[in-house]
């Protein structure tokens, strides 16, 4: 049982994913209302408020510009909250992992299930925003349907990165660092609210390697009915972050739980 051995994947993650889904089903109504209300408030509030001052951005109305960013940061937020706060509760406070690990399920299965579940939450959040975008008439392109698989991919990426923090966390307070020092800067640097070209060159370089930028760069052209340039690279980057995050978090969890 070497901590650094590669993940051994199996279908045994399915009953764990179903467990998380069953918990969610009990609060599904609240959760769905939240997923829908949040983007409506942001898009309408910022879109009308700021949008009236900024008649056009990147060739579209500000509200359309903001719509693509909203899909991406919603998926980032929902995967991050699930992987950090809910994941930590399951690992540490409720000892759910301990109960599961006493069965013929391994830690690799448990961590994979966490990532897939958090990504599922991203998928739901992303689909809710896309629904709002259609209802508000912000996109008419069938290409916008591609934002559904993008939400899942972005979810996998942010869930995997987030689990690294969960594996290192002594307690819930620790997550404040991640949200303040990683999530919030990403929201401001990655072209969610304004084009990255407004940033000084150094910050543009930083922005280019952040995962949220890759998601935004795919999402924005698709909503406008265009194929995103460099899509393969962006997809590869998101998948790379997801794979690396999975591996690093798994190694850290193996170390943490073998004590």
């Amino acid at each position: 049982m070497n901590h650094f051995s590669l993940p051994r994947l199996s279908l045994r993650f399915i009953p764990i994913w179903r467990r998380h889904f069953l918990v969610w089903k009990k609060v599904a109504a609240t959760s769905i209302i939240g997923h829908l209300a949040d983007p409506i408030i942001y898009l309408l509030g910022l879109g009308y408020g700021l949008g009236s001052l900024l008649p056009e951005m990147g060739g579209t109305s500000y509200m359309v510009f903001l719509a693509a960013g909203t899909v991406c940061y919603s998926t980032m937020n929902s995967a991050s909250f699930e992987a950090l706060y809910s994941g930590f509760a399951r690992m540490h406070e409720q000892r759910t992992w301990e109960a599961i690990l006493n069965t013929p399920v391994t830690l690799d299965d448990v961590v994979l299930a966490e990532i897939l579940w958090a990504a599922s939450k991203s998928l739901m959040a992303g689909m809710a925003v896309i629904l709002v975008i259609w209802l508000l008439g912000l996109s008419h392109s069938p290409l916008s349907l591609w934002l559904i698989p993008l939400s899942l991919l972005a979810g996998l990426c942010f869930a995997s990165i987030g689990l690294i923090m969960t594996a290192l966390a002594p307690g819930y307070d620790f997550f404040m660092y991640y949200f303040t020092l990683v999530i919030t800067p990403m929201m401001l640097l990655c072209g969610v609210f304004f084009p990255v070209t407004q940033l000084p060159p150094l910050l543009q370089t930083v922005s280019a390697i952040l995962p949220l930028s890759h998601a935004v760069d795919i999402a924005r052209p698709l909503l406008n009915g265009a194929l995103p340039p460099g899509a393969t690279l962006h997809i590869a980057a998101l998948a790379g972050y997801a794979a690396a995050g999975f591996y690093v978090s798994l190694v850290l969890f193996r170390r943490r739980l073998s004590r």
Partner: protein
Amino acid sequence: MSAVISAQNLRKSYARQEVVSGVSITINKGECFGLLGPNGAGKTTTLRLLLGLIAPDGGELELLGEPVPRHAREARLRVGVVPQMDNLDPDFTVAENLLVYGRYFGMKDSEIEARIPALLEFANLTHKKDAKIPTLSGGMKRRLTLARALVNDPEIIFLDEPTTGLDPQARHLIWQRLRELTQQGKTLLLTTHFMDEAERLCHRLAILDQGRIISEGSPRALISQHIEPQVVEVFGERAGQWARENAAHYAGRFEVSGETAFCYVSDAQPLLAHLQGHGELRYLHRPANLEDVFLKLTGREMRE
């Protein structure tokens, strides 16, 4: 009898401190085996090693014929575990906890649902089927945890301090259920620091201290091997002084702890006659028990 657990010379260190230092255990099918020891003796670590949840630094181990930790997963398909701390799913009802847990063993929903009524009856929780976990008492939670450990109809059940924190009624009910399980031919491996629990339930037990097994055998054999058959406890303010002056005369071995003198004797009559002449001293005459063995072997000092 066939061995269902066989461990030789298991070792495990954490941060260069050896927690398990060469433990060898053989447990036969149908046995109730107890692992006793003070806090920090290595009981829980030994259980985790036996389950293949952590890898030993040295030693050989087979669980239900499977080499562990290499094939721990296959072995755990046929094992049930009652952990020390409750880890039921608080968001689920009693029945949902059983259903969700059974799925981890790869069981079909229909298969689990067919088992749930009998499991609930075993746990005296039929009337609580749809109750949420936070509404259950401590005893009910323990019983549900035991029922959950049986969902896959295991051959061996590991129980880590199954009755810690329970009131006497709840403990007796758990004991009764554990006896039923051994009658059904299940093998039980339990850790406890309640000596009466070990004496009542266990066919055989091992006393673990500082990562080593310091004695092993049936409760009766351990008592007769280590302790004189009779114990007279003399207590009161002047018990210490009395013991220093008189105990050696009547008892082959005695110990003073606080305001109590423990006198270990083969024949208690001369000592009892002497005590009847000292009305200021109170005393209790009883047969030797496992607690006497435990305290003799592991000492009276606190382990913290």
